[in-house]
């Protein structure tokens, strides 16, 4: 096939000279302790990138003409240089889309954000009711998030996003999430719950059932305005493909920069198995993106393995490597949530001893080093939200 005629989707699997966008977790510090946190956040890492190092990363991204960066954490607004860095990025034409729990999004900060160009805001909730949400994100977190949304609305910020991780408990509230979004003129985003970070401990209990996934798929098909960030591409094997590239972008068109400068294939695989390098090494981020062994191998054609004989492999691409890795399944085999149930068979057949054990990561710990039970209640003084 002539090079120019290669479908974009195929071209993306081979990787690009620079990411199209990427996720950058600014800090592992967080004032919430959500049960499913993909980055096991809570405690700031002592080796966190300095303000100068962070600006240098922005310089690199601007040189590589990365169009925008998804900023998150932990809670990114806990970085003392948060606004400086965001301002610095947009001045260099690197757009910023940041994700926040909203606890630090005061009315004054909402007004400040409203005055900035090329900054998009996303507020996380995981339930349409406080009870559903707070059981995952901690007592008080729903109220704080709604206050942040009200602050954005009052500041005439414009359209923001509401982001939900779909679980067994909130998948029955999809219409209510839609209503909340509509009430603010906001966009709704649904994201797949992956067994990453602290999620590994709750995935069995909280990931949607097969029947719920089918329902979700049909709900999404009818609502092309709901964003998914392509995170449900494994469901495309059910029939008509969902919107998006329908493939894993990790190490190919996206990646993660973590708070200490480690570069991972994506935010859902913060594990040494998927660590490509560090921006503090010679050559910086560009060298890691273009030359790391990990990313080069991800840009090779991947083996379908056990999925090769399945007629739907082209649609689902074998699903999500994070979902497979953290449930102890081989990467060249079915996704644990394979819509045809092949994943369940694989889970039953796996060697449970081979599971990557839950890592403490940056979760808050007691003085014995034991992770504090999650979720923890939000501790904030009401005047902090004024």
């Amino acid at each position, binding site marked *: 096939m002539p090079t120019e005629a290669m479908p974009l989707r195929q071209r993306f699997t081979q990787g690009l000279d620079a990411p199209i966008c990427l996720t950058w977790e600014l800090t592992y510090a967080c004032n919430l302790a959500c049960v499913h946190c993909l980055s096991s956040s809570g405690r700031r890492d002592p080796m966190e990138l300095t303000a100068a190092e962070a600006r240098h990363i922005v310089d690199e991204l601007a040189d590589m003409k990365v169009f925008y960066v998804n900023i998150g954490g932990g809670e990114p607004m806990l970085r003392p240089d948060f606004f400086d860095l965001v301002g610095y990025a947009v001045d260099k034409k690197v757009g910023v889309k940041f994700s926040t729990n909203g606890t630090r999004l005061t009315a004054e900060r909402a007004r400040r954000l409203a005055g900035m160009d090329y900054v998009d805001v996303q507020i996380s909730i995981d339930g349409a009711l406080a009870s559903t949400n707070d059981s995952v994100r901690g007592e008080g977190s729903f109220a704080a998030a709604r206050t942040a949304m009200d602050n954005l609305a009052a500041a005439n910020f414009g359209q923001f996003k509401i982001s939900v991780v779909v679980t067994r408990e909130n998948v029955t509230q999809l219409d209510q999430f839609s209503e909340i979004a509509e009430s603010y003129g906001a966009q709704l985003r649904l994201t797949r719950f992956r067994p990453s970070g602290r999620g590994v401990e709750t995935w069995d209990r909280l990931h949607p059932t097969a029947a719920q996934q089918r329902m979700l798929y049909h709900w999404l098909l009818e609502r092309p305005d709901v964003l998914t960030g392509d995170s449900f591409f494994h469901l495309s094997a059910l029939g008509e493909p969902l919107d*998006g590239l329908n493939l894993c972008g990790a190490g190919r068109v996206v990646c993660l920069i973590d708070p200490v400068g480690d570069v991972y294939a994506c935010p859902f695989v913060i594990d040494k198995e998927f660590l490509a390098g560090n921006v503090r090494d010679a050559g910086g981020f560009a060298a890691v993106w273009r030359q790391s062994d990990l990313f080069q191998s991800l840009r090779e054609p991947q083996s379908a393995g056990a999925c090769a004989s399945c007629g739907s492999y082209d649609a689902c691409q074998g699903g999500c490597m994070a979902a497979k890795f953290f449930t102890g399944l081989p990467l060249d085999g079915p996704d644990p949530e394979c819509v045809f149930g092949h994943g369940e068979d694989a889970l039953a057949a796996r060697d449970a001893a081979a599971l990557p054990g839950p890592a403490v990561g940056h979760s808050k710990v007691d003085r014995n080093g034991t992770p504090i039970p999650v979720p923890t209640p939000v501790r904030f003084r009401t005047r902090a939200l004024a």
Partner: protein
Amino acid sequence: MLLSEDQEVLDTEALSDEEVDELLVEEVSIDGMCGVY
């Protein structure tokens, strides 16, 4: 094997205008790539 006249016409006009245009410009949803959140 000789192609029928109909088949020959089809082969040279195999792509619709739209398909030909897709060879030049394609839009991709910026939200449509997995690996961000």
